[in-house]
């Protein structure tokens, strides 16, 4: 399973590196969202600074939808899905590999977004480790839930509109916990921030487990 996961992740990452879709479309989109938030809230630095964690996580959520759509789009052409299914690769491995590839892209996006809110919204991070741990856990959870629903809606003609409707409510807890943890990390309130990790951690674990268990039947389906 793990070797298969590595193979699939490697394939996806290679495709992304060569096609540069993530670099030239997903990343600029994330930055654009930040700038638009700035327009929506006005130039006053205090309002932006207070809202920064929430805006950051909203941008990450939107990017997750894009990244999962992209992750499924590269399987949609020329019978690739059938190829993947016939290759004898463990479905759980396919799932974990796809999650890893999406997570890697999300990490890259988050690095840029993090720099973005520091530069554009003038925030100062008091507790770095808390922000980093929260981001990592949230990224795993987001990618797992995203890939699961991406697979569910893959191959449907309405997937572009269906996927956000399915994914965004599911990941609402990540938005809540992530932005709370980041608010705490910015102000240095470690104790209250750390308690939010108790939601991010189980969320990631639960969706990884559900994905490993259910990706098989899902792959047969589509």
């Amino acid at each position, binding site marked *: 399973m793990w070797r298969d996961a590595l193979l699939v992740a490697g394939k996806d990452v290679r495709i992304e590196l060569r096609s540069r879709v993530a670099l030239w479309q997903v990343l600029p989109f994330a930055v654009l969202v930040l700038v638009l938030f700035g327009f929506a809230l006005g130039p006053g630095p205090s309002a932006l600074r207070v809202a920064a964690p929430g805006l950051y996580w909203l941008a990450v959520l939107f990017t997750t939808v894009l990244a999962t759509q992209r992750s499924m789009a590269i399987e949609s052409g020329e019978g690739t899905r059938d190829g993947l299914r016939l290759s004898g690769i463990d479905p759980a491995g396919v799932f974990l590999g796809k999650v890893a590839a999406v997570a890697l892209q999300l990490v890259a996006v988050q690095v840029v977004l993090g720099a973005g809110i520091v530069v554009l919204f003038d925030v100062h991070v008091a507790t770095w480790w808390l922000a980093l741990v929260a981001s990592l856990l949230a990224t795993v959870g987001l990618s797992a839930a995203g890939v699961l629903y991406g697979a569910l809606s893959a191959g449907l003609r*309405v997937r572009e509109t*269906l996927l956000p409707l*399915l994914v965004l409510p*599911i990941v609402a*807890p990540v938005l809540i916990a992530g932005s709370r943890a980041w608010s705490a990390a910015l102000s240095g309130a470690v104790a209250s921030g750390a308690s939010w990790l108790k939601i991010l951690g189980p969320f990631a674990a639960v969706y990884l487990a559900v994905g490993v268990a259910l990706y098989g039947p899902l792959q047969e389906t589509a």
Partner: protein
Amino acid sequence: MSARMRLATRMVGLAALVSTAFTVWLAFWVTPPAKVMGTLVRLLYLHPPVAWVALYCAFGLAALSSLLYLWRRTRTLFWDRLGASAVEVGVVFTALTLITGSLWGRPTWGVWWTWTARLTSTALLLVLFLGYLALRRVPADPEVRARRCAVAALVAFVDVPIVMFSVDWWQTLHQQGTVLNPGLDLKVHGSMAWTMLLGFVAMTLVFVWMVLVRYRVEVLADRIGDEELEVSLSERWAEGSAVTLDPGAPSRGAPGRGAPGLPATLVGVGRRAEDLAEHASPVPEHASLVAEHAAPVPEHASPVAEPLPGHATEPLGGRR
């Protein structure tokens, strides 16, 4: 569906009607207005029962039947249909929960909506299961759709406790449960308690009745889909044999004449699919299901197509 089942549905419907009528009578004419809330308390006989049905009966049943569908030994379309019916009724009841709660909140709290944990998580639950319904409306083979929807329901259901926890922490000033709220619990007694209990029974019966009826609709809709497929298949068979048996039809290798024959058949098939789609407009899923199945038809078209691959593909490509 058997006659006995239909009778049972009617009996449940009758019981639901009677108990609801009885609850209405008790709620408006027998029970007194409350000391603090006045006549507003009468919403108490509707709102908690509706919420109970939505949050526990409907989504519990949906999760259970999805699980039983995914379990290989109990995999039948029965569980799929039951789960879908439960979700659909559950969505209606969740919306009613929010509406009745909002009606109660406006005079009591002064606002239609507050961001308390209960309200927020119920609203999220509604959106989660609306997504399920949207997924269900996507045309697909019944088996495929069943598996897809079962997975979606389970994934959504797993999210429910996480949503509850996170929203609870997010808004720590949350409202306590109405029945479990100690202050209110003391006030609900006597005829009011009995009315509320009857309200629970009535709403549960309404739920069971709606699920039974919805299940039957699901079965009938699937049957329509199957029968339309049968009809269109047999018609196409008839058409195919008519073309090959036609005395004027081209023999093997006759150039020029064979080629127009193939597009004619395919155009006929395409038109048939469109006709079906038009006739079946109230049930778009099945119509497009038929259309999807009709489009490729490689087996039936091949007797005509095989003799002249070179000629046949050209006009076909041109028409598309």
